[in-house]
């Protein structure tokens, strides 16, 4: 266990940061969605994700045992310490960009949480099992929207193709594993990156076929890596907004 402790903390932060940053982007949609039903759905998905982030952070904070709690992990770390994938920090764009982003993430999330539900770490298995129910709904929803937009009007198809083109380069970072994840997966604790990537690819191909969308060639690494805190320029601004109160009033109780 102690061998894995630092690895485990890193891995939990990745899971938490992915969910939080994605949830934060969904908050930006408040009052701006294309229909009332979508206002509800986006806030609903965002709420699930922020709830999951809190669960991962709480576990990470216990392992860290350095006096920081879940809120401090969320609101007091800088962008170089954030571990989320590049995909979720991308701006919302139009509804096609948001939809494609959610679908790519949800498919990865579902396969990851499925694997984690069988983790040898009981705490991880429990958090994943709870999240899996929510993410099953997220993926159904985002998948249906990819299909509607991909196989809707000419305009919606054009936008969906543009959104995929815009976001596809970030799928490498979404799917790539590293030594930390490999060690944890070897110990039966984390999800195996390669199996998740294969399942993800199958999910994307299946849906894209239904929506008659072409599947691009696998994306390649392009010198940034969210897992190592090497982000796009979007994250810093997102955090400045999200963390403002905790930074301005560091001793406050809310």
């Amino acid at each position, binding site marked *: 266990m102690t061998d894995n402790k630092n690895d485990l903390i890193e891995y939990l932060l990745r899971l938490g940061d992915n969910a939080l940053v994605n*949830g*934060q982007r969904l*908050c*930006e949609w*408040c*009052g*701006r*969605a*294309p*229909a*009332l*039903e*979508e*206002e*509800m759905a986006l*806030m*609903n998905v*965002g*709420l699930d994700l*922020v*709830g999951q*982030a*809190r669960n991962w*952070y709480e576990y990470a904070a216990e392992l860290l045992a350095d006096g920081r709690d*879940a*809120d401090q992990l*969320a*609101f007091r770390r800088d962008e170089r310490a954030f571990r989320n994938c590049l995909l979720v920090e991308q701006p919302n764009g*139009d*509804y096609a960009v948001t939809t494609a982003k959610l679908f790519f993430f949800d498919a990865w999330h579902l396969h990851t949480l499925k694997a984690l539900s069988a983790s040898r770490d009981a705490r991880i298995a429990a958090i994943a099992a709870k999240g899996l129910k929510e993410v099953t709904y997220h993926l159904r929803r985002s998948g249906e929207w990819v*299909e*509607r*937009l991909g*196989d*809707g*009007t000419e*305009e*919606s198809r054009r*936008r969906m193709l543009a959104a995929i083109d815009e976001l596809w380069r970030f799928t490498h970072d979404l799917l790539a594993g590293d030594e930390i994840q490999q060690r944890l997966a070897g110990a039966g604790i984390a999800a195996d990156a390669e199996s998740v990537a294969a399942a993800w690819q199958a999910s994307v191909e299946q849906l894209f076929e239904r929506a008659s969308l072409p599947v691009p060639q696998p994306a390649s690494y392009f010198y940034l890596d969210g897992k190592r805190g090497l982000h796009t320029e979007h994250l810093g601004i997102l955090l400045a*907004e*999200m963390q*403002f*109160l*905790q930074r301005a*009033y560091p*001793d*406050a*109780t*809310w």
Partner: protein
Amino acid sequence: MYAQLVETGVKRVKSLEEMSPEERAFQERIDAEIKIEPKNWMPDAYRQTLIRQISQHAHSEIVGMLPEGNWVTRAPTLKRKLQLMAKIQDEAGHGMYLYSAMETLGADRDAEIEKLHSGKAKYSSIFNYPTLNWADMGAVGWLVDGAAIVNQVVLQRTSYGPYSRAMIRICKEESFHQRQGYEILLTMMRHGTQAQKDMVQDAINRLWWPALMMFGPSDADSPNSAQSMAWKIKRMSNDDLRQRFIDQTVPQLEFLGCTAPDPDLKWNEERGHYDFGPINWQEFYDVLKGNGPCNRERIATRRKAIEDGAWVREAAVAHAAKRQQKQKVA
């Protein structure tokens, strides 16, 4: 109150003798406290008044997401963020209940929303005030949802069945929001720094009067109230509801350790109520006419959302048609 000035189009309430047999049967049903249901006969003015009131109420829920949306990306803790997201989600749901209730009267949701965007339909004046610090999220929950509840509790007994039932469902969730809002303020006052306490008082100073305006014009200036009361759409007058709100809110204000921005506010032993100072009715009518601090921004945001989303809704319709076609072939 989320619908604070609703035209009835009726100048004078008719007596039973002046009514047609249909009108009289309708009024007798109202007087006997039997709910009116969508398929029942109703005077056209009753129908139109309800469409105006319920749509105004629905629009308020939707526009009301914006002042809170302003802080949801900046909520200070994960717990507060989750609470605010849940609340905003509830509000979208309330908007949908209310639009459905309105549609039972034969009105069209999209057409009514278009009236909102073109400035023909109103929504609550309160949402035209900006949210300027985090304590506003507490003050909106406590004062604004509090005022809405005082009104909605009474509206649970409103004469139109679908509206009344929507109010019953909505009140349960609103009460929860109000308690959460109060708890935000209480936490800041009890455990907060001086800067946080100042935020709370500042939020109350800015939102106190606008919250009182939510109950609408004073009874003396409510030409539409008599008919709405006779139809039992309204069950209590604006001033009575406002007084009830003040009486129940001042002790909560004192418990917080805050003050109201009203030098005339004091307990009147003789009346058994709080006396309070004059409301700035000029400001009220300015805001209602579209000249408040955020009217333009609120409507511009909603209009942009619907316009930018047009292609998404069109895609959904086109896809549904294609799917139906495929099923027919198969």
